């Protein structure tokens, strides 16, 4: 079992790192030939950073759009961030001091994460418009995350696995060696689904995470009159004669 999970996570790590690197490179090198910020838009680089920060940290556009999705979505993402931060301790001999500080918050975040996810899932069933646009994968993705959250909660509250052993396992896993430990059922579910999540990340809508930073409607400066914007392939068209 230890060997299986070690191999699975090495594989999943390679997939998510290379997959994301490939997608980010694609977004990076693909030109945005025209200025298409959704206006009113910032007229300076600093303004764009501020706009993007609001978008990524407080989901500004979603807040404008729909308060229910915002409540559930924001609750889920902030909780997830806390939960992930809490898990850093499994990968460091001596965790950073702030990782220790947030431990209790991360504990409660697991609840709010699952509540947020259940809210989002309920919307998929209840709101006819959202039901119409949902593919099976949209439900499955939420269910997978809910199971990850619940299996984590079960380990926290009901059947505590040997946390010290798990930490040992991952520390040596990072050094490319395998330590034999025992896995209980919730841990098996938890780790399997996390690995699956990592593997599908670069092939699915989870690409919204890097995608948002490359969205030209949000990351472009509104200065087309002041500064000429031209992409490489468009510049080539200009080798044709022009007045």
């Amino acid at each position, binding site marked *: 079992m230890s060997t299986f999970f070690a191999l699975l996570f090495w594989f999943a790590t390679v997939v998510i790192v290379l997959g994301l690197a490939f997608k980010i490179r*694609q*977004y990076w090198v*693909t*030109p*945005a*030939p*025209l*200025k*298409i910020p*959704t*206006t*009113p*838009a*910032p*007229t300076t680089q600093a303004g764009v950073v501020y706009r993007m920060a609001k*978008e990524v940290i407080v*989901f500004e*556009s*979603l807040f*404008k*759009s*729909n308060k229910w*999705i915002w409540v559930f*979505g924001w609750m889920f993402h902030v909780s997830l961030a806390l939960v992930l931060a809490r898990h850093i301790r499994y990968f460091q001999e001596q965790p950073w001091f702030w990782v220790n500080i947030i431990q209790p918050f991360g504990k409660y975040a697991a609840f709010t994460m699952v509540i947020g996810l259940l809210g*989002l899932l309920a*919307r998929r069933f209840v*709101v*006819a*418009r*959202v039901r*119409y*646009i*949902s*593919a*099976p*994968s*949209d439900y499955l993705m939420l269910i997978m995350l809910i199971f990850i959250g619940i299996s984590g909660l079960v380990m926290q509250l009901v059947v505590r696995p040997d946390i010290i052993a798990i930490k040992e396992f991952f520390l040596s896993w990072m050094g490319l060696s395998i330590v034999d430990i025992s896995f209980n059922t919730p841990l098996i579910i938890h780790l399997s689904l996390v690995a699956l999540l990592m593997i*599908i990340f670069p*092939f*699915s*809508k989870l*690409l*919204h995470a890097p*995608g*948002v930073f*490359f*969205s*030209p*409607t*949000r990351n472009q400066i509104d200065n*087309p*009159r002041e500064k*000429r*914007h*031209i992409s490489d*392939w*468009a510049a080539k*068209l200009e080798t044709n004669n*022009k*007045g």
Partner: protein
Amino acid sequence: MADFETPELFKHIHIPKPVPGAMESVGPFIAKPDHQTALGFPAELVDNWEQKAVDAMGEAVKKYRGLAVFLDSCVKCGACTDKCHYYLGSSDPKNMPVARQDLFRSVYRKYHTPAGKFLSKLGLEWLIGAKTMDKSVLDDWYNYYHQCSECRRCSVYCPYGIDTAEITMAARDVMAQIGQGMKYSNEIIAKVYKIGNNLGLPEPALADTLEGLEEDIEDETGVKVELPLDRKGCDILLITPSADFFAEPHVDGLMGYAKVFHEAGVSWTISSKASEAANFGLFIGNYDNMRKISLRIREAAIDLGVKRIVYGECGHAWRVGYSFLNTLAGPFDFLDQNYPIPQHICEFTHDLIKKDKLKFDPSENDWMTLTFHDSCNVARGSRMGDKAGGQFTIPRDIIKTVCNNFVDMAPETIGEGTYCCGGGGGLLTDDLMAVRVKGAMPRMTALTNVVKEDGVTHMAAICAICKSQFSKVLPYYNLGMDMIVSVHQLVSNAIILTGQESEKGEPETAESKPE
């Protein structure tokens, strides 16, 4: 879709339950071979079009980062589902922005993503909503990508800024490339190439029209205000939508620009070569055509030796002018760099108002109570002035200067959240009347509310398409077709020309500003 029902208006804009297939149709007329080839597209649907469409999609994703990001990033959260005026007015779920995008995304996923290719081999592509490119998909594309006015309202509300307009444009471009373009837009672009403007108005007719307008202004005011055509060595080249030359209320706006130029003491001209601000290359999502149309403006500016370019009231033209002209036809290093290139007529007039160079009698507009419709392309795809949001304040400042009675519509229906008139994006054609009337529902709701509550009598706009669309659809909602006016028509009514014969005598109200 010859017969259709005009949506019922409620006090608040009503979010309907989805009614699948409500707007199913064959779509607008398909472009004739001549109009396809004039734009560089195949005359008719090519052999093996399925594969060619798939290939063209792949090319588009390589050329446009926005498209690549938008196709990958949607999480189907549903935030956009109640934001499109066509969905609100028609109840057809394929008019929800995300569903419209999915018509394209589902094919993209199948052929151009690892997940789609892998799952297709297992016969499991339905799991991620991936679809095969076939006739039914093409039919849906043709129908529903011509029920989008590319107004970008959805992009305001999307947490990732996904702009359905970009996907609509890509889909229309793919369809044109496989031989199934749209008649209305392509015919018009062909006319621009052949004659110089959307309406096919040749130079002599244009000269005649402008002369007639000069006479009208002289009859009305006693002042000789010129509307020059192809005059060399002027300060300003005016680029305006050709509807301004004859349609109501557009032409009253053109007379307004002429009076402002006259009072400003600048020399200006219209060009018969570039006698059209509109650029339908935007609507069909084709960079080459959009560029070719834009280059006429550059050439006209060089030929006539002007120092500045000013745009008349036209929404999408201003988006192309403001956001893209420098890219498509720049650099404009031969123009006077002390002025924005290009400049909007509202910016021009607003500057003069701020400098107190114009005299007005706003009581000339006292018989009206005005509201202002923010045109989608101006609101969400451009700017005026040097501050973000100037596109909202500048036209309103002008209206409030020349009119005493002004009321805004509900805040969520104007500004960046403005509802499209329903006729933008190349849909201003009679064969799409059902789409246009239904799509106007949200704006008509907001307008009807201010008519009832605030006694609004007229709605001003700065877009030729909005003006034409409203003239046509207002009667469907029991409102008068002449409710729609040009902003510079209001300026024209109120401006006091130097030496003007006035029945009122002294221009005593010139300085008085409302509130």
